[in-house]
């Protein structure tokens, strides 16, 4: 068996292994209590309770969608983590919870998650399968369906947390027309401006992905956020070193990282 690292992937392999080690170390240190990282406030996440409370007062439903992605997409996984929290709160307050999605692979996971959220809230009978709605796996058919649902049901809270492409503005404007409080989040850098322009709260890129850990708040989860911050710091230091080398006209550092 002849084993070799793929050409141009040596640097990636090293960074990958270093990242894993740092993550494990951060989790270990946070769990042990040696490090007590403070996570800054995420207004979007703190507003979830406000949104659900508003829906309870108005007697209107909460609409939650994870967008176009499938269950393998990190944004959808993050969206489903938050969905668990929101579904449980909605069950507790007796608010109708509407969940829409585009990719069929999300369906079994979402149904199970929402059903168990209702069970954990002590209201398993209030779970209604017809409130977990697969609209279409075509982007704009899904957008049209979600837009119609938001406007017909006059949702009080419109939560757009997942993978969104061009339909982001369609959904956000529909939520605005319905008079809903809107919390949105995606890592698609070119859809974030649309959400910022139309939604009350936006989770930008990593804020969405770490939202699940933020909500859970356990030392292990917070440790991973700390680990990612250390990786970011390392990236920053490497960038500055690279910048200095490049400014001095020396390609050595660039070539080393580019192996």
């Amino acid at each position, binding site marked *: 068996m002849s084993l070799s690292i793929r050409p141009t992937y040596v640097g990636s392999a090293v960074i990958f292994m270093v990242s894993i080690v740092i993550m494990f170390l951060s989790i270990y240190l946070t769990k042990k209590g040696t490090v007590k990282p403070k996570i800054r406030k995420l207004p979007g996440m703190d507003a979830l309770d406000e949104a659900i409370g508003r829906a309870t007062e108005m007697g209107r439903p909460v609409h939650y969608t994870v967008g176009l992605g499938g269950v393998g997409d990190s944004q959808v996984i993050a969206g489903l983590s938050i969905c668990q929290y929101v579904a449980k709160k909605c069950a507790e307050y007796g608010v109708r919870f509407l969940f829409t999605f585009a990719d069929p692979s999300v369906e079994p*996971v979402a149904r199970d998650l929402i059903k168990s959220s209702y069970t954990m809230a002590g209201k398993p009978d209030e779970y209604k399968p*017809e409130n977990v709605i697969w609209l279409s796996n075509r982007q704009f058919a899904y957008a049209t369906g979600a837009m119609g649902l938001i406007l017909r049901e006059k949702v009080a809270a419109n939560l757009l947390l997942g993978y969104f492409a061009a339909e982001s*503005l369609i959904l956000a404007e529909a939520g605005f027309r319905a008079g809903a409080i809107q919390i949105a989040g995606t*890592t698609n850098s070119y859809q974030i401006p649309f959400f910022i322009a139309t939604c009350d709260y936006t989770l930008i890129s990593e804020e969405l992905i770490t939202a699940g850990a933020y909500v859970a708040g356990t030392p292990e989860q917070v440790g991973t956020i700390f680990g990612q911050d250390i990786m970011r710091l390392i990236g920053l230091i490497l960038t500055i070193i690279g910048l200095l080398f490049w400014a001095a006209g020396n390609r050595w550092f660039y070539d080393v990282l580019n192996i």
Partner: protein
Amino acid sequence: MSIVIRRYIPWILAVILTFFMALDTLVLEKNINAYAEAIRKAQAIIGTHAVIISITLFTRIHGRRVIKDPKRIESWILLICLWIPLIWGLGRYAFYGVKPTVEPSIQQVFSAIVSPGDSTIYSILVFFIASAAYRAFRARSMEAAILLIAGSICMLGNAPVGELIWSGFVPLKDWINNVWVRAEARVIIISGLLATLALYVRILLGYERGWMGRGE
């Protein structure tokens, strides 16, 4: 179903497959690469089969609706539009060997109805962008004012009429794109990737279980 099967087996499978696929990405070895290719094909097949689950549930929900109330036109239309092309396409493939992606009637339906429908909904964005820009681009604060000015410069720089109004819009737009937008895109991409790495570590360690479906 026991907790071992529902919780631990998917998690163990995920851990093994993650490290194996990471190995395939980084390493050149005939057998590892061949197995990884087979796993990718399996993933595509399994993902496609998720459609079957959704079609079944979809049919069940809308089927119950039309049985309860036969006047529900929208459910009838949905079921007809779902099942007739499905049966037709599968039948044509089974009996005549014509793949649905090149089957002329299905391509006609796609070109005549689905494709223009997609374009029409996409074009609604022009109105929504106008109303969102009108509402959101208010100089309520310093940041909002900067957003407003940058947005206006980029809009006029991207349209030929902007250059007619003032030739400086284009170089300003280029500067915004090449300096600020480039930096912003890099930051968002890098931070998103780091957060995704942290998420996958949480999944591998079993702290994140939303993807399995079961709650805490």
